[in-house]
């Protein structure tokens, strides 16, 4: 039975640590069964333990130990690494922000402490890193490089790429893409990250695989609508993405009606501060994320394939709170990593998205300028098989 260490910022009800680690403790729904991983959480590190901390209660009930340091957690209090995998969850908890409004979660620092143990004890084990690798591409790159250097499996990222899709579609591997547009909502930098990774898990399937990002630009406010009217992003794809939304606001909130929010102009009234994230890839492909708080409350993508008159569109289905069964979809991927040692999809996706987000926020910080991003020269091939929930 694999022995798991949990390394996290905070363990309270409805934090990511609780969502993910609990599933290793009590099981989770998988393919129509209640699945109990053949693994045991043996140790835990929790950086912050404010009121509501559940780590001690869980430790008592499920028979593991909460250690004061990450090294002790990985060594289970002994002098050699004594776990077979690490669940690293640096999300939630009180951490400072930088001037680009990024939350400075200590994922890199936690990861480096794990790596230090791996090196000292001459044994590396798989790590799952929740969400983006780091707010800093440089740090994120070092994390991925460490995984390659020490040859351990690294999986990272959001639940959006692996949750159910409405409809259940993926892009054909190697397809020729003309355009992609993602609609997301929520704050920056947590939620734009999810939206960018959702879009990335689609567009990485284009012909030639992922080639990296050449330049980005983030614009805010009325300029977003202006750029749409000028054709910098596609109104047709926005309509396609909206066709998958279950949550149009405004008039729909008022009396339940369906509405074409572009044609009736509601979108311009509803969204106080739209943002557009323009991403130019090394192979010339361009994609756009629109963050449209006020218009909708779900995450939908639309993609134009060459020679296909109708765009492909879908909703990344964020199943209801508190079950958030979408996190069960991600835990099944984490379990696969822990079981086999191999990540079911490359951490390079998350690396690229981590860096893309950082550069977008830098663009905003520097007055919405276009930034060339030669450092985002991250090339990878997506897995041939679709990884989202289908069974």
């Amino acid at each position, binding site marked *: 039975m694999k022995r798991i260490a949990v390394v996290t910022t905070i363990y309270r009800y409805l934090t990511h640590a609780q969502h993910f680690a609990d599933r290793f403790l009590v099981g989770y729904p998988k393919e129509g069964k209640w699945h109990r991983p053949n693994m045991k959480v043996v140790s835990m590190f929790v950086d912050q333990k404010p009121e509501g901390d559940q780590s001690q209660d869980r430790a008592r009930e499920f028979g593991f130990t909460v250690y004061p340091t990450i090294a002790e957690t990985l060594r289970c209090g002994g002098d050699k690494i004594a776990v077979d995998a690490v669940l690293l969850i640096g999300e939630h908890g009180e951490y400072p922000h930088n001037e680009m409004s990024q939350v400075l979660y200590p994922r890199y620092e936690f990861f480096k402490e794990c790596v230090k143990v791996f090196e000292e004890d001459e044994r590396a084990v798989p790590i799952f890193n929740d969400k983006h690798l780091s707010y800093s591409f440089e740090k994120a790159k070092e994390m991925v490089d460490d995984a390659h250097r020490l040859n351990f499996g690294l999986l990272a990222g959001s639940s959006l790429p692996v949750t159910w899709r409405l409809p259940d579609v993926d892009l054909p591997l190697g397809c020729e893409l003309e355009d992609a547009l993602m609609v997301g909502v929520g704050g920056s930098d947590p939620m734009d990250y999810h939206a960018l990774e959702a879009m990335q898990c689609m567009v990485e399937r284009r012909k030639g695989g992922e080639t990296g990002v050449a330049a980005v630009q983030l614009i805010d406010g009325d300029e977003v609508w202006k750029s749409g009217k000028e054709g910098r992003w596609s109104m047709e794809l926005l309509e396609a993405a909206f066709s998958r939304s279950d949550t149009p606001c405004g008039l729909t909130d008022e009396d339940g009606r369906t509405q074409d929010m572009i044609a009736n102009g509601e979108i311009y009234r509803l969204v106080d501060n739209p943002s557009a994230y323009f991403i130019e890839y090394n192979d010339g492909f361009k994609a756009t994320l629109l963050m449209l708080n006020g218009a909708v409350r779900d995450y939908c993508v639309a993609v134009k394939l060459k020679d296909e008159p109708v765009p492909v569109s879908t909703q990344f289905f964020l199943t209801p709170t508190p079950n*958030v069964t979408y996190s069960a979809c991600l835990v099944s991927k984490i379990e696969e990593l822990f079981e086999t040692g191999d990540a079911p999809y490359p951490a390079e996706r998350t690396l690229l998205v981590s860096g893309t987000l950082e550069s977008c926020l830098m663009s905003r910080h520097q007055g919405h300028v276009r930034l060339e991003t030669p450092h985002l020269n991250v090339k990878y091939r997506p897995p041939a098989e679709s990884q989202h929930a289908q069974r």
Partner: protein
Amino acid sequence: MDKRPKIAAIATIYHKYSHTQHIVDRFLEGYGWNSQHHYPPMDLVSLYVEQVKDNDLSSDRLERFPTMKGYPTIAEALTLGGKELAVDGVLLIGEHGEYPSNDKGQRLYPRYEHYMQIVEVFDRSGRGVPVFNDKHLSWNWDWAREMYDLSQSMDFAFMAGSSLPVTWRTPSIDMPLGTTVSEAVCVGYGGVDSYDFHALETLQCMVERRKGGESGVKWLQAYRGDAFWNAHHSKLWSKELFEAALCRSHTLTPSRPGFNNPFPTIDEMKEIVNDPIAYQYEHNDGLKSTMILMNGLVQDFNFAAYIGSHNDVLSTQMYLPMPPARTTLANFFSPLVNNIEQMFLTGKATYPVERTLLTTGLVAAGVDSLHDGGNLQNTPHLDIVYQSTEESTYWRT
């Protein structure tokens, strides 16, 4: 058809989140469909609304869509004020509104009464046009049967039922056509004579695809409260299928504080579910189906069945994006309206109304069994034999 069909809507009431609002609005305002905001290629020209109250939306809709006219009677809505039938399709939406209930707790929605007025116009005009009846045909079995028989004898397309058979599924799967099914279960939620119908349609749209097609139902027995748990413990239905259905839920009530998604023990389920209800029934070919309402434990509709020669478990959720808690739009009405549109365009129902005739009879039998202290109800009148469509009709594009 070379011109745009004209459609009449006959409704009990038109307010926010009423079925009328969900369905009629989609004809008027269009709806998201297949990467576009789709406008049905037909005109909703007339509206009859029986109850107009403070929360009414029909006056707003009539004002904003002047091509649609309101009429004070059903006959006038169908004749557009003239003498003869003047529309090409009819929406009959008898759900919501203030109507009395009978001593068995059935809400006496006037679907049959409205339908008979529609048919009267058909009769006098010497022709019928396609009719969609929202939800079950009638609370009264004899009336439901008469509605069905009239559609057959007058030879007009008739479609009815719930959104459950046509909405998204997670996972997006259908019952393989022609497979053997040895037992089926649906675990859902909601009240008797309301959401039981949705759960029965969920079951029926799956099991009707089995080998031989639907053979009708010979008896039904309802279980409630302690009788439910006794039946559960006696394995009257498969515990494995019951749990498989629960494992498709996205809304399992956490049985322990501080945990967001644990699987409840039986004892915890008994704490959570005050009034569990099951309708179990045997089809004429021997298949046993069980509809279970677990109010408090789940807020979705989940299906599981043993299929094939190895009794493999097939399970899925029929997903309802339900406002206002989870969404703003009840988008499960979009595939329903899309199917109705197809019927209005082609003159053919996209799936058999016999399904809804059967589930109408099952609701009535379930209500009767509950009213009769849980006694078994023989249902020789539910000898309803039909074949499913070959192609799946649920939402997957």
